[in-house]
């Protein structure tokens, strides 16, 4: 497994090996799936759309619907205007969504297609909406595409009518439907009225009923997106993912915002609950206090199995930072934190975390790849890996347990239904991490050291 990876590090400036990011459009597609009765539309050649649908379907094990402008060579030369026009007509005719959310691709970006012009010229049925965002694949990553699409919805739809709605606008970060459900549950428990964009719960974790519905019950409604402009405050969870649209909403509709880390782990969830408390002025209910207490109980009961264990965490920037936080709360050492998404802020945030917990010698790197992480591990190994499916080769090559967290997880089931955020999510993470480490101890120990009670 990965036998060709040498231990010796070498400088690379052109070659990406085993990437830790993918391109913008897939993030845009995921965001658009979190809007109710929305058809994500990929303006490019049909391979992009196919790859992205395939990829999302593999992660969620649920249909990821989207359409394509199906560029051929002709469209690539003469522009994709007529393809988009035809596509819009056909989509409304055949699939009848409320809204089409167009994102671009490296193809349509390179030829400089004018999406605003095309959409203005398109025949859009009465009451239906078409929005767009630019997602050049050669800038940023899927995280960039995700927040660009959220921003696109706001740009086209959010309005400040002058009358506040007393609601909280919540940008959940690049998380699973299970996480979005947990955020909503916590907000409801805190008595906070909210608008969450996007909301893929009820879409990408839609129930089996025996009859297929192209537009399941979930997703942020168009009227709610419009109403975002009237919110009192935005909470942008996951600073590297959600600040961009929050900032845009502030500029457009004067909704002030506050950024917070993804609520992964004790302190990050505390910060989220405190922000909700501050917003609603409602006391924190016992139900939440109880969950927090349970989490603290678990972390203390089990600390001996995690204390000083070293871990490498890879994936999307906010998820990695959140996972680093909870690992440190469990007494672990996050020796390597890597993300494929470019941006030095990731490294700065990681450094602050290391300092907060008094850790030295931990490395954080953005715009990194799994090949490099593997080389680091070959030189100085870790006790645990945390991240998505693509790390499984390293886990096998180096015989390190892997806890699957984040995106994408294309080789396991159920993960997208379960939260990693909130105290409940932290309890789940504690169980996953403890099981991985303790199963390993059981597997590796001598017969005479096998513990019945642990």
């Amino acid at each position, binding site marked *: 497994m990965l036998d060709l990876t040498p231990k010796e590090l070498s400088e690379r*400036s052109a070659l990406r090996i085993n*990437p830790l990011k993918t391109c913008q459009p897939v993030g845009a597609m995921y965001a658009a799936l979190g809007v109710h009765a929305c058809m994500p539309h990929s303006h490019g050649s049909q391979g992009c759309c196919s790859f992205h649908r395939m990829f999302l379907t593999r992660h969620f*094990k649920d249909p990821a619907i989207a359409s394509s402008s199906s560029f*051929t060579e002709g469209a690539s030369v003469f522009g994709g205007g007529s393809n988009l026009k035809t*596509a819009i007509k056909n989509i409304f005719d055949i699939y009848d969504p409320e809204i089409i959310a167009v994102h671009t691709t490296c193809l349509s970006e390179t030829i400089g297609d004018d999406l605003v012009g095309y959409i203005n010229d398109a025949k859009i049925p009465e009451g239906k909406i078409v929005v767009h965002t630019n997602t050049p694949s050669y800038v940023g990553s899927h995280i960039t595409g995700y927040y660009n699409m959220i921003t696109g919805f706001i740009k086209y739809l959010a309005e400040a009518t002058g009358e506040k709605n007393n609601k909280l606008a919540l940008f959940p970060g690049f998380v699973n439907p299970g996480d979005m459900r947990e955020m909503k549950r916590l907000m409801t428990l805190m008595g906070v009225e909210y608008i969450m964009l996007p909301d893929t719960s009820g879409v990408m974790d839609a129930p089996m009923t025996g009859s297929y519905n192209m537009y399941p019950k979930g997703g942020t409604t168009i009227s709610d997106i419009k109403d975002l402009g009237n919110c009192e405050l935005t909470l942008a969870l996951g600073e590297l993912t959600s600040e961009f649209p929050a900032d845009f909403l502030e500029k457009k509709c004067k909704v002030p915002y506050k950024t917070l880390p993804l609520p992964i782990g004790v302190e990050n969830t505390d910060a989220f609950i405190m922000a909700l408390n501050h917003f609603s002025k409602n006391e924190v209910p016992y139900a939440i206090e109880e969950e927090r207490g349970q989490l603290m109980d678990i972390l203390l009961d089990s600390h001996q199995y995690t204390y000083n264990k070293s871990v490498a965490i890879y994936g999307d920037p906010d998820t990695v930072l959140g996972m680093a936080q909870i690992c440190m709360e469990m007494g672990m050492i996050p020796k390597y934190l890597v993300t494929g998404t470019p941006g030095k802020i990731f490294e700065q945030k990681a450094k602050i975390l290391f300092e907060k917990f008094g850790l030295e010698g931990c490395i954080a790197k953005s715009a990194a790849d799994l090949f490099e992480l593997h080389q680091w591990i070959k030189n100085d190994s870790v006790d645990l890996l945390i991240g998505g499916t*693509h790390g499984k080769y390293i886990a096998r090559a180096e015989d390190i347990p892997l806890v699957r967290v984040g995106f994408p997880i294309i080789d396991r089931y159920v993960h997208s239904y379960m939260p990693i955020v909130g105290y409940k999510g932290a309890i789940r993470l504690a169980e996953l991490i403890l099981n991985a480490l303790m199963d390993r101890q059981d597997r590796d120990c001598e017969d005479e050291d096998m513990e019945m009670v642990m």
Partner: protein
Amino acid sequence: MDSREKVLDKYSSKVYKNRKEHVITIEEGEPNVIQADTRAIPGIMTNRGCCYAGCKGVVLSPLKDVAIITHGPIGCGYYTWGTRRHKAKGDENTKSFGEYCFSTDMQETDIVFGGEKKLKKAIKEVVDIFNPNCIMICSTCPVGLIGDDIHAVAAEAEELYGIKIIAFSCEGYKGVSQSGGHHIANNGLMKSIIGTGDAEPMKYSVNLLGEYNIGGDGWETERILKRIGYNIVSIMTGDGSYAELKNAHTADLNLVQCHRSINYIAEMMKTKYGIEWLKVNFIGIEGIKKTLRDIALFFNDPQLIARTETVIAEEEEEITEGMDYYKTRLEGKTAAIYVGGSRTHHYINLLKTLGVEVVLAGYEFGHRDDYEGRDVLPSIKLDADSKNVESITVEKDPENFKSFLTPERLEELKNAGVPIEVYNGLWSDINDNAVITDDYNHFETEEFLKLLKPDIFFSGIKDKFIIQKSGVPSRQLHSYDYAGPYAGFRGALNFAKDITMAIYAPAWNLIQAPWKSTPTLEGSLGGTE
């Protein structure tokens, strides 16, 4: 109205006009003409992918000892990393790159100023770290648009590093589907690799073309062929390698499994080296038996013919009891089957053996010859999209040209029904009244599901869960749902087991919640007590 008309009727006139040529009902005694390999309609949720997917993803990726650099932004390389189940195994002499994904991860500056410099650097970095014998470069959409000359970069690097470096201009917008990419990959392999080796010819040697070793299919096929006594020179391309492919021209016979993706190489090798190609099918017991007997007839060695019968008998014996059992579970079921460009056809005989009738079928990117047979080829007019995909011609190679068969023997075999340079397409096995949908889309899937109510639907990952959410079991026939192999006799049994499992999974009977069919309120009416 029949099912076909009911579905088409819902389209706007423009879409109707296009789709009515692609959706037909098979009628006995009719020519059953279908339209295929034309542009997908924008906005229609086609299941098709792109040229890059066909070239890099399908044909080239399985070559295990080749480091393939995707030249473009990160996505395309990322999506084709480890996601197609072309199993491969390296050894001490073969570096296996299957676990690696290489990309130039082009950034905005590369798009603006050109990406050649970065590509050159990336090649150098691959050579420095991995020192492979062969590097391939596959371009993605923007590369063609900004005009990077990847072929010049490849030629220069080949000279510089003394290893084989081949470029493929397989930008996603070329052609109308993955199919264009297969063709481009075929051209490159033919131009730059096949025929460059100097291995000694082997007796009874074959190449296995269009076998990508999904789920280990190629290994199972190889096991059977070796049992009989054939020597396999190369497999194109599942668990194949640059090293083997170089010597492909030394084989006596080309066996073509996936006609769609590799018939170009088969044809060109016939012209250049005189090697006959035989359409084979290692899926389904009837398919395999015919194929093994055809191959034996080709070589016409009494020992091989006898050995073939022994192997067939032994292999069949091993699975008969199991197959008989699964047939009792499956007899009378109906199926829909939509896969790439050949696979749909391959499975029909296997389903028949199990008593399953195909009521709905089609290809994602097949051409008319994949449906109607190669006889239709001369009547297919090339459109602008087909012309945009490079087509090359080859000349006879006098040094390496050989004919295994005498013209008389060739004629004799053809008359005996051995499909040498012959492929009769899906029509040869499909039953009457089946609905055929070319380049099927989401809408048609949903509608035909309701109208034809198949018991099982074979398709891919994008529609799998749409189908299952409609209450119909679905198995992926691109990836075998991470199981397999399905080729060979043992594979047939795996297949039977897997579809029985899909249909009889206990959870199917639990979908309906009890309160949906039982009144919630119990008790008596007010005032009666």
